[in-house]
């Protein structure tokens, strides 16, 4: 089934690397995927957005008006793309930076203070992994936890063991938040 995901935040938050990881994970699991980055001329700090589409068969259009799943990593991203989420979709909000009240009641909302959790775990850079975890926990149906863990193993194979452990912990923490949101 064709599923679309938009990730948005500001440059440096790991928007693009999260998108590429999800697309690669889907491909490794035998699916088709597209990843489309969009950003301004700034080297860092500007608005960053990417669209990932995952499908069982070849993807015809990688562009769509509304997405099935949305990860917003800061307030501006929520303000700009919050309305682009399909009714019945899943929204993952990094509440460490999305400060306004999320008012949509026609979608599943997972509120994750990802930056705060990431700092607690030891490195703010793993906030994007926490949000991917929340996406998996909320059963967005794009990638599985096992496949994502395998991707992390591959991605951080050349790094120190602690780096991999941190990312595993980040993913698991995110999954918990996703599951809790589903229960609520």
């Amino acid at each position: 089934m064709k599923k679309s995901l938009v990730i948005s935040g500001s440059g440096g938050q790991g928007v693009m690397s999260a998108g590429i990881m999800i697309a690669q994970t889907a491909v490794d699991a035998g699916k088709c995927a597209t990843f489309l980055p969009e950003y301004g001329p700034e080297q860092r700090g500007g608005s960053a957005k990417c669209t990932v589409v995952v499908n069982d068969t070849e993807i015809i259009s990688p562009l769509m008006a509304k997405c099935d799943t949305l990860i917003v990593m800061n307030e501006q991203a929520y303000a700009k793309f919050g309305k682009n989420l399909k009714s019945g979709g899943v929204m993952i909000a990094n509440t460490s930076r999305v400060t306004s009240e999320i008012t949509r009641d026609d979608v599943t909302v997972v509120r994750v203070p990802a930056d705060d959790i990431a700092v607690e775990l030891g490195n703010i850079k793993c906030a994007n992994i926490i949000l991917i975890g929340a996406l998996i926990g909320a059963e967005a149906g794009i990638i599985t936890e096992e496949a994502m863990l395998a991707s992390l193993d591959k991605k951080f194979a050349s790094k120190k063991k602690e780096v991999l452990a941190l990312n595993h912990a980040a993913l698991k923490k995110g999954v918990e938040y996703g599951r809790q949101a589903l229960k609520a």
Partner: protein
Amino acid sequence: MAKILMKGNEAIAEAAVRAGCRFFAGYPITPQNEIPEYLSWRLPEVGGVFVQGESEVASVNMVYGAAASGCRAMTSSSGPGISLKAEGISYLAGTQLPAVIVNISRGGPGLGSIQPAQQDYLQATKALGHGGFRVMVFAPATLQEAVDVTYNAWEYAERDRNPVMILMDGCLGSIMEQVEFPEMKEPDRKGTHAWDLNRVEGEKRSARLLLPYFPEALLEVKNKSHKAMIERWQKNDVQVEEFMLEDAEYVAVAYGISARVAKEAILRLRDEGHKVGLIRPITLFPFPKESFQKLNYEQVKGIIDIELAIPAQMHDDIALEVLGRAPIHDYCRSGGMLFDDDGIYNAVKKIIDGGAK
């Protein structure tokens, strides 16, 4: 070889290497920077040469020199940079040298925007430089197609001894999707002595001047043979995808990324019983005239030109084939604004509903 997830620009670069390209010169510009970035490390790996030129003009002239030395050479840029290379491309055509020019296009005119657009259609198909020459223009819609046309581009360029253009929007340049690469090619160098200053075959060697000046009668002969070549392209080399045209009452025309979004919208319209089809030129030049000639104009109620260019640029080529037998509507965006499925669906639906009244 298994399919791998890769960025459009890098896929073109790798396909060029596998096609036997061993020289690249270019100057940075968004949204094509991954092409030179990739080739800067990849070409030395296979014994090739990568140069970041001091300018676009210098780069295209280095390609000019490399081509004259029998090397498969390429340069890439985006709109503003292609304008700067226009003189060099015209010289390549004038001296009958093969080379591949890639334009990963962005919004224009002028500096325009760095976001994707299809605003260089006229430049690519009508006048890529001064002097009234044409080049074959390939417009892939998927990254696999981009790999395939790049892999074959030098076959056309060397057959014709003429530059070839690959025109792809910035969206496909920056997107990642799965591609499968063909094997590394060992280019056939038989016959290249006709332009290769380094080669002699038997007694034959054609001495060439890189800045030729032709007496007027000879130039006219050259122009005539160029015209004959264009006519051969039109007869033999058109590439097009025709999608659901048999019963179509409305025919969308789109290329590159626009065609993919249009196709998705068409499938949705088909689900609702609307008879919509698509003509997707893969070669923008030669233009797929046949596809329009064989439409049943008793049945076709409208043609819809869908492109990321305002004003529409492909419209005139469509009009020349439709010849008033059906109304032509434009649904366009530009400047870096992209299509989405809803937008094209609604635009076509509106035309259909209007036609039904």
